[in-house]
């Protein structure tokens, strides 16, 4: 059953990722990415990471992708000319580079695969909110607070970037 689910999720994830980068329409790309994120969340559940599977859907598929769709709709840019209209050297180099990176990663996985241990029995409890929160608020408390500062800085920075032009126009008038 687990193998069947993994193969199903993996095929959907790869297909939607390919669909995302090959789609001409930006909105369709965003929707493909949502499918990809949801299937990845299913894979997290297979790996007993319940909390992160939930967070994946809430934060990524919910918050971040809505932000992306909002910006796409706001800017109304849906006019990228067909992707492979004319063959360019740039695309060939991109494909070559991607294949080389891919082959390199696969090779290193093949080397390491036999050395890795099997899943341990105490892992069944490790993905829950309690287990994660226990470590998060003790060992990683400082990092957690740094995250809070980072997110605050990001919000302030986004406000600055969005406001800047408007303020300048008001001054010049």
């Amino acid at each position, binding site marked *: 059953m687990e193998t069947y689910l993994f193969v199903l999720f993996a095929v959907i994830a790869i297909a939607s990722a390919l669909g995302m980068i090959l789609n001409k329409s930006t909105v369709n790309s965003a929707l493909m990415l949502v499918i990809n994120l949801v299937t990845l969340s299913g*894979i997290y559940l297979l790996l007993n990471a319940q909390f992160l599977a939930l967070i994946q859907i809430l934060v990524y598929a919910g918050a*971040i992708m809505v932000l992306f769709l909002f910006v796409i709709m706001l800017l109304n840019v849906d006019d990228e000319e067909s992707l492979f209209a004319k063959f360019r050297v740039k695309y060939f180099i*991109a494909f070559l580079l991607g294949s080389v990176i*891919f082959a390199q990663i696969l090779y290193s*996985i093949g080397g390491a695969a036999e050395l890795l241990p099997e899943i341990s029995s105490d892992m069944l409890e490790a993905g829950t909110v309690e287990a994660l929160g226990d470590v998060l608020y003790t060992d990683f408390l400082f990092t957690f607070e740094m995250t809070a500062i980072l997110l605050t800085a990001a919000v302030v920075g986004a406000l600055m970037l969005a406001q800047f032009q408007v303020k300048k126009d008001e001054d010049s008038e």
Partner: protein
Amino acid sequence: MVGIDWYLALSAILFTIGAIGVLIRRNAIVVFMCVELMLNAVNLSLISFSAFHGDVTGQILVFFSLSVAAAEAVVGLAIIISIFRNNLSVDITKVNLLRW
């Protein structure tokens, strides 16, 4: 039982697709989404390592990577909007602010 190598292979494939997308797409928003895809591929490998080693630290790292991705998306989209205001385009080949 699916071994860790399958999860890592899926992660590698997704990361590669994301990297190719960053290289071939010209729409800045799609490039951003490809970066998100790459971040997710790394998250997947972190979680599979965490699951197969029985260590919760990998999942904590994914938590932080999620928050960094959220911050990056907010700031990045704000930058894209301000570029669009100046250029009326989000085509990254037409942006030459840092080019000399």
